């Protein structure tokens, strides 16, 4: 079945009325997607470090077990850090969800095909690694269930969301890494963040 989903609609559906949700986004399109949904200090969009978004999410989820942590990343980024799915599957944080926005392309470098275009099933990998809930999503009718899985099912949760490959206008977050880190910590930890 071909997907009918647009990536920005998926991310918007995940992040609307997000309350205290902590969000880490992989570099490139997913960083622009979370920014298009509304930049906030509790977003940590990556501009580099390809392959490590899910691990940043794990470190954060273990540090903040009472907060929900959502990693939103691309298929190319997730493929580069496939081992992190095994690491997360072993730790089993109940408050972590990883959502891969899968357009089957390397979007920033000329839309070259990724492994998922040849059928590599990331949700099956996550399931085999011990994620508690995994799914593939391809239609608008599944978005409500995706949102409740990502935001409230006991984790680790993994979703591979097939989206239409499309080039969209860039919506850029701040790119100063020190600023992104400091504003996140201050919003999460309060003034104490600056005293540690």
């Amino acid at each position: 079945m071909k997907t009918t989903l647009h990536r920005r609609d998926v991310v918007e559906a995940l992040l609307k009325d997000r309350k205290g949700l902590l969000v880490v986004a992989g570099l490139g399109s997913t960083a622009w997607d979370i920014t298009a949904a509304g930049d906030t200090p509790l977003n940590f969009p990556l501009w580099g470090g390809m392959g490590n978004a899910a691990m940043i999410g794990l470190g954060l989820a273990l540090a903040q077990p009472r907060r929900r942590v959502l990693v939103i990343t691309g298929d190319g980024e997730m493929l580069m850090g496939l081992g992190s799915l095994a690491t997360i599957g072993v730790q089993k944080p109940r408050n972590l969800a990883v959502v891969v926005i899968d357009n089957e392309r390397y979007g920033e470098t000329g839309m070259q095909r990724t492994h998922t275009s040849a059928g590599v099933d990331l949700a099956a990998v996550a399931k085999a690694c011990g994620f508690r809930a995994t799914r593939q999503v391809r239609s608008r009718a599944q978005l409500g269930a995706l949102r409740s899985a990502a935001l409230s099912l006991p984790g680790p949760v993994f979703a591979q969301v097939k989206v239409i490959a499309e080039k969209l206008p860039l919506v850029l977050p701040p790119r100063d890494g020190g600023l992104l880190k400091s504003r996140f910590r201050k919003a999460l930890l309060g003034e104490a963040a600056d005293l540690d």
Partner: protein
Amino acid sequence: MKRIDPHPWPEQIYKTLKDAGVRQVGYVPDAGHKRLIELCIADKEMRAVVLSTEEEGIGLAAGAWLGGVRGALLMQSSGVGNCINHLGTVRECRFPLLMLITMRGQKGEFNPWQVPMGQATPGVLEAMGVVVHEANAAEEIAPTVDAAARLAFGSYQAVAVLISQAVIGIKSFQDQSSR
């Protein structure tokens, strides 16, 4: 007769990490870190996270710091090469990072495949902006780790402690596999 180690440095590192407030420890196992890993796993206040590759530990420690928790990362020198690109993230974001690295390819190495990365380790770390502290004797290790932790968390630096192969003292494949 069992020898009594006059410098139980893994225990001393563990105590130093506790005193520094470290609560997440990512690791890729190394024979030289065996005892320290066991101590971290046994500690209910610490979360020991086994990694599939060393660069995962850079992300783990960054995420921990975003969440207000101090982390440390244990690895062998061969793992340093896996971390390089992610050390760029650490530098750009000024994340504190404490890496404890047991050295191979150094003094008395018996496996030639360990030598290139072992010899390049200090240069590679320094090229990525990591401050390198070397501990060449057992009694130097704990104070060096203590200083490294203060520099990492007090001054928001990436700091690596290189624990010399001379201290670890593995001299053959047989010796390594018997530990």
